[in-house]
């Protein structure tokens, strides 16, 4: 027979079954996990360490409900959470310890802020009484991350945890989404307190995630659109973030307006949709760039006129009246003056606008886009996708992949030439299919983001397309793939150069190739060290069948394709030039 003392030792202190509904005493660490469950979290990307041990100890009892993915570096963890958030539309969750664990999140936080990705990052912190003493692994992560978080907060008392996490999730996912960091001191994780039922946050008096739509601006916008002879729609990630793909499609199908996308907006409308006229920006399509300076009404939807999209601002769409739909009022008028500001959630504004616009087709205007596309096909695209040269091109790899996946895959890209090629040519049938680091341009993003994307959308094929530079920045995440068995297909487009910088050096620095000649390991051997199948392709004849083999392989597969060393990405709007000065070669 057990004594009372013995039974207290043998029985688990907390039974992790369902979300707690009654007040009870528990530690801050358990309260943290309970809050995650209440918010519907199923996956955490993290890495343990001294200051977050109490939370990891609690996690030991929650293995069934919370899938913790052990990454190989905290930067990998946060990029994986970004990939998860982007593929699933849910909030990505990251655990990291204090000090270096927390500072390793910095790049991902900056990336998530500029690309509006909802994240909740939970970092451990030294005991509250040690704050400011230069304790072991103490760093002032709140102040370090202030400019790169939508909100951050330090918890020093367990009683603050529920409210802090409720606010964190609400802030991360509402309005214009963004990353939130909650720093929890070790004493708060250990402290026992009376845990009341978790109450999600739905209102913060100082925070207005979206306004009531003002009908007069909708009417003004509709009147401009109805009078327009050459209207042009630019859409960005706001359409995806607002989950307004159907509303967007209905709007352009009724108004008949040609629509072009930013790289973060890609996929909100299928690539093959007849009103989809292509990609905007520095390496975007010819027509959308040139005709930006010929349209009479420019309708920007959930995009922020990044300098890579606009080129030289004082020569950007000066002839056009601009209608700007955005949920973030500071984006309206930030770079391009708006004739009609439509501040609001595009899920609400688009249907109101659709109701007021006249059904049109604009055949002559569409013809202009078609003619420009023909020119681009002749000058660039045909040779890129169906090359006559001996060397493989990046574009043909994407083209062959399109034929095999038929546009159903999630494409995750890194940063550089391969990113531009993949964004330009990848066929996307579905929304949330193009995951890339847009605003920050973070090399090393793709491999961990692809892991996260697969966890966020387990039933969809995920293909990471990465350059030989970027893959070497976070290649340790092959270890995460090995350990979790996550099925990610990895294509390394190896041109044995840091290609984008090399292209700029060729075009603008007299071919002074300064430190862009980068060596690679034998990636197939590296992969096999991680028990990941792999193959290298150097000849066109092997390309398609190897891609097929990769796609059919059960589990992860690394495919290295040796591509032409000195191919350039065209078209190109050189820096400091207007979009209409885009070069085809």
């Amino acid at each position, binding site marked *: 027979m057990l004594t009372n003392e013995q039974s207290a030792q043998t029985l688990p202190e907390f039974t992790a079954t369902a979300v707690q509904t009654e007040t009870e005493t528990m530690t801050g660490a358990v309260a943290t996990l309970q809050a995650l469950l209440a918010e519907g979290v199923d996956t955490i990307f993290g890495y343990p360490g001294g200051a977050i041990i109490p939370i990891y100890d609690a996690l030991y009892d929650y293995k069934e409900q919370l899938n913790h993915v052990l990454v190989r570096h905290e930067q990998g963890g946060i990029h994986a959470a970004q990939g998860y958030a982007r593929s699933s539309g849910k909030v990505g969750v990251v655990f990291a310890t204090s000090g270096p664990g927390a500072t390793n999140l910095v790049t991902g936080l900056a990336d998530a802020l500029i690309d509006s990705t909802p994240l909740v990052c939970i970092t451990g912190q030294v005991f509250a009484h040690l704050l400011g003493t230069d304790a072991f692994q103490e760093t002032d992560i709140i102040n370090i991350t202030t400019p790169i978080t939508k909100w951050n907060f330090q918890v020093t008392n367990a009683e603050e945890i529920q409210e802090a996490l409720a606010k964190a999730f609400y*802030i991360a996912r509402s309005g214009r989404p963004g990353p939130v960091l909650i720093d929890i001191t070790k004493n708060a994780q250990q402290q026992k307190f009376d845990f009341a039922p978790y109450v999600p946050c739905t209102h913060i008096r100082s*925070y207005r995630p979206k*306004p009531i739509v003002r009908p007069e601006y909708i009417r003004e916008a509709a009147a401009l659109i109805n009078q327009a002879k050459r209207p042009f729609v630019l859409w960005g990630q706001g359409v995806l973030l607002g989950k307004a793909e159907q509303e967007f499609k209905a709007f352009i199908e009724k108004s008949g307006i040609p629509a072009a996308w930013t790289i973060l907006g890609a996929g909100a409308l299928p690539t093959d949709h007849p009103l989809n006229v292509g990609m905007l920006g520095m390496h975007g399509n010819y027509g959308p760039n040139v005709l930006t300076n010929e349209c009479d009404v420019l309708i920007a939807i959930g995009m922020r006129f990044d300098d890579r999209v606009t080129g030289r601002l004082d020569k950007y769409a000066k002839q056009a009246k601009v209608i700007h739909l955005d949920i973030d*009022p*500071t984006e309206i008028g930030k770079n*391009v*003056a708006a004739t009609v*500001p439509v501040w609001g959630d595009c899920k609400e504004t688009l249907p109101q606008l659709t109701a007021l616009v006249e059904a049109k087709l604009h055949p002559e205007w569409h013809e202009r886009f078609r003619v420009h596309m023909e020119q681009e096909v002749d000058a660039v695209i045909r040779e890129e996708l169906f090359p006559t040269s001996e060397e493989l091109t990046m574009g043909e790899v994407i083209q062959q992949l399109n034929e095999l996946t038929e546009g159903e895959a999630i494409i995750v890209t890194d940063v550089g030439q391969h990113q531009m090629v993949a964004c330009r040519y990848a066929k996307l049938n579905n929304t949330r299919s193009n995951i890339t680091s847009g605003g920050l341009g973070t090399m090393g993003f793709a491999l961990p983001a692809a892991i996260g994307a697969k966890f966020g959308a387990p039933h969809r094929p995920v293909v990471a397309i990465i350059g030989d530079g970027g893959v070497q920045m976070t290649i340790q995440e092959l270890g995460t793939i090995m350990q979790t068995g996550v099925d990610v297909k990895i294509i390394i487009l190896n041109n044995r150069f840091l290609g984008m910088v090399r292209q700029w050096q060729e075009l603008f620095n007299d071919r002074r190739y300064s430190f862009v000649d980068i060596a690679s390991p034998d990636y197939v051997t590296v992969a096999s060290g991680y028990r990941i199948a792999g193959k290298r392709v150097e000849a066109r004849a092997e390309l398609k069948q190897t891609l097929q083999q990769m796609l059919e392989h059960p589990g992860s597969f690394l495919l290295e394709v040796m591509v032409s060393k000195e191919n350039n990405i065209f078209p190109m709007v050189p820096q400091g030039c207007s979009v209409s000065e885009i070069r085809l070669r």
Partner: protein
Amino acid sequence: MSQQPSIDRQEYNITAYTENQVGLLNRIAIIFSRRKINIESLNVSPSEVEGIHRFNIVINETEEVVSKLAGQIEKQIEVLKVYYNTNADVIWQEMALYKVPTDVIAEKAIVERLLRENGARAVVIRKDYTVFETTGHREETDNLIRVLQPYGLIEFVRSARIAIIKASDGFNSKLREFERTEPSAEPAENEFLNSRSKVFTM
């Protein structure tokens, strides 16, 4: 942008109503420092509404820059409302304290007269020194420094500027709108879009 001389640059008074939250001062300050804009004067103190703090920030910039900065500040989660005004739109004051040797004042009648003329008021009188206080615009408090300098001014300090907005109806009613659960019938911040010339300029 702050580096270029511009005829449109002038002093602006930014007024922000915020929650009283650790770290918010930094969050607001870095909005300026990120753009290499110097804050000329900064005052943070509790407002007339319990729990709400009021920032008074003075910068020298163009209206275009100031309107964008105001938007960025208002975007911070714990900021309720931001206004920006030119000096003509506000009543503003700075307070200054002057420490001078008591014997000089006691001996020289002219000093006493100068202090009276400048509206100074004695705060502390001790055997060795006396502390005077004035409030006014920068030129006025500066002027008294010049006046007292020949008579052995020991120490001087000036507060940040505080400013009352001439056209403001106060913050109490606004706060009630903010406290209402979203979406409210007439969201206060839609005023922002009413004054389009202020917001949507290039």
